[in-house]
């Protein structure tokens, strides 16, 4: 059987298995095992992918941010600072329709300056924001979308794992890429905010508001709000800002790397939790919660690696990119096709693998059309990040599901993020149309 055939069959089988309820990690590893078996006709080689990938897939210092940010998120919800932050956000922007959705976006943008991995953002904010939005009667789909959509900011606003990988592959300056990501990150955050306000005005019930008898739109009343005043709200939300300042200041002040920042941040939230009365029993609860979320995310990362290794072995990804390269079309069409292929790959592969596979093939095309590599990098990264939110393989969605546990279906999350995917597409179009949005900041350096 030709290797490409194997790859195509494996993608179809993967979709089928996942649809019929086989766990995603199981489906990915099974299809990589079968795929390699069919390609090599040797069962030992197929088996060996299971062992080597289990051992190696997450054996990287930077992967430590995932358990550590999950731990940080658990401590934050345990200590109640998450609730305080959102009460504060709601207090300050309650006049705005969809205030908590906007608060989610803004906090994610701030957090993005700390983390380089979107999966970590998704796990933290699913834990912090969802209960609060649900308490304020936000529709679950909308709340899930806001959290999932804004977590992609984690890899668009520097530091960013994807930018580092892209910078190395394309031989462009990583520092300039970091600077280039800031404006698009803010634009995307801005689009999200406007979009949330728009959605909230069009459908007040999405964001826990309703028309009263007089036809006036009012927010759902939540008990505590009556006793709040500016000073109290600010004071209670202060600790979380201190932690953000500690982590951000630590990174940009040169005290520690983003990976180390996740450990320092987790430690700071541990101290905060103890100060707020956490006892050994509470610590145990936090640890068990962390274990559940982390293990399913790490297991997915391991099996996703198995699958992308199988696809690499088949040569199918290279064939796909070659098709784009060999079509003698205009720059606009080719760019559109590249984005389209990236979105397709995003359905089944993880972000880093997509970059590794496609960048070397796209570089010659970029040279032919004279594209600016920094601009191209940012465009590619946003498009690839859309893949974090698309079925059947959407890492951010899975991380959220792993964090939430029972009560929400994966499909609900995929449905909820659709509006945010559209807004991402808008951001891509804007950045393609105005390349200077990405090239201006780096040019000042």
């Amino acid at each position, binding site marked *: 059987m030709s290797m490409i055939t194997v790859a195509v069959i494996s993608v179809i089988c993967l979709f089928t298995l996942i*649809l019929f309820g086989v*766990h995603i990690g199981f489906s990915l590893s099974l299809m990589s095992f079968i795929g390699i078996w069919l390609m090599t006709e040797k069962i030992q080689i197929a*088996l060996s992918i299971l*062992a080597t990938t289990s051992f190696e897939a997450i054996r990287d210092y930077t992967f430590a941010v995932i358990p550590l940010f999950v731990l940080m998120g658990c401590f934050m919800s345990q200590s109640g600072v998450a609730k305080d932050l959102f009460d504060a956000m709601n207090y300050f922007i309650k006049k705005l329709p969809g205030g908590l959705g906007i608060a989610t976006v803004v906090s994610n943008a701030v957090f993005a300056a700390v983390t380089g991995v979107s999966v970590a953002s998704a796990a933290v904010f699913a834990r912090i924001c969802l209960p609060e939005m649900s308490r304020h009667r936000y529709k679950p789909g909308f709340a899930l979308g806001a959290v999932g959509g804004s977590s992609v900011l984690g890899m668009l606003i520097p530091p960013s794992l994807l930018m580092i990988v892209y910078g190395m592959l394309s031989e462009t300056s990583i520092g300039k890429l970091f600077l280039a990501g800031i404006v698009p990150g803010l634009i995307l955050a801005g689009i999200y905010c406007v979009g949330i306000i728009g959605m909230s005005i069009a459908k007040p019930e999405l964001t826990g508001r309703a028309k009263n008898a007089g036809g006036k739109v009012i927010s759902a009343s939540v008990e505590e709000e009556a006793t709040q005043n500016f000073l109290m709200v600010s004071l209670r939300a202060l600790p979380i800002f201190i932690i953000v300042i500690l982590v951000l200041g630590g990174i940009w002040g040169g005290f520690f790397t983003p990976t180390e920042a996740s450990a320092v941040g987790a430690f700071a939230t541990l101290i905060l939790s103890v100060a707020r009365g956490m006892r050994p029993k509470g610590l145990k609860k936090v640890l068990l919660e962390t274990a559940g979320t982390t293990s399913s995310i790490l297991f997915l990362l391991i099996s996703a690696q198995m699958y992308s290794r199988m696809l690499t072995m088949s040569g199918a990804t290279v064939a796909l990119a070659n098709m784009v390269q060999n079509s003698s079309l205009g720059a606009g069409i080719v760019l559109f096709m590249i984005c389209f292929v990236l979105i397709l790959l995003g359905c089944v592969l993880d972000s880093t693998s997509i970059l590794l596979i496609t960048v070397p093939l796209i570089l010659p095309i970029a040279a032919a059309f004279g594209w600016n590599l920094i601009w191209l990098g940012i465009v590619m990264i946003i498009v690839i990040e859309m893949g974090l939110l698309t079925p059947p393989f959407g890492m951010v969605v899975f991380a959220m599901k792993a964090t939430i546990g029972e009560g929400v279906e994966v499909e609900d999350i995929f449905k909820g993020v659709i509006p945010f995917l559209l807004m991402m597409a808008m951001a891509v179009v804007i950045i393609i149309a105005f390349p200077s949005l990405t090239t201006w900041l780096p040019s000042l350096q």
Partner: protein
Amino acid sequence: MIRKFDRFMNILASVSSYIGAVGILIIMIVICFDVTGRIFFNHPNIGTPEIVQNSLAAIAFLMLPWATYLGQHVRSTMIKNRLPVKLAYSAEIAAYFVGACLFLGVILSAWEPMTFATKIKDFQGEGLRVPIYPVWWVIIYGSVLSCYQCISKIVKAAAAIKNPTFTTEDDGGGIQV
């Protein structure tokens, strides 16, 4: 007898998961020590990256069996929710059969690397040599327990097909339909 063994395996899974979580806490402390040493005492702890990166797989596999028991692995239940009960239980059996086979595959394929790494006392790092062969032990240990949990789910689902009123003692380890 079987019931006792089952309880023992579940407790083992839960304890392992807890140990894995404590491992995350230890990673946090190790990194904080390294950072503190570097910033305040000009003395970073060589070997921190090796300790951390090699612990990750071990931690993941320590926590895997309990996550399997709790049914925390991500899946889509869109179609399964709409199936008739017996068919849904069959789908459940199929899914966990795949899981059991995979964990068995991990055990089989990790055996030789494990024995070899143990024989040569495989390590990583120069400043501080971190032994990495125990990671293989943990991968096999975690896979054995996870494989057991998958089989246990298959048995429960099969029993439920025979006797639809069958319920498990505790909700956590039940099967999801």
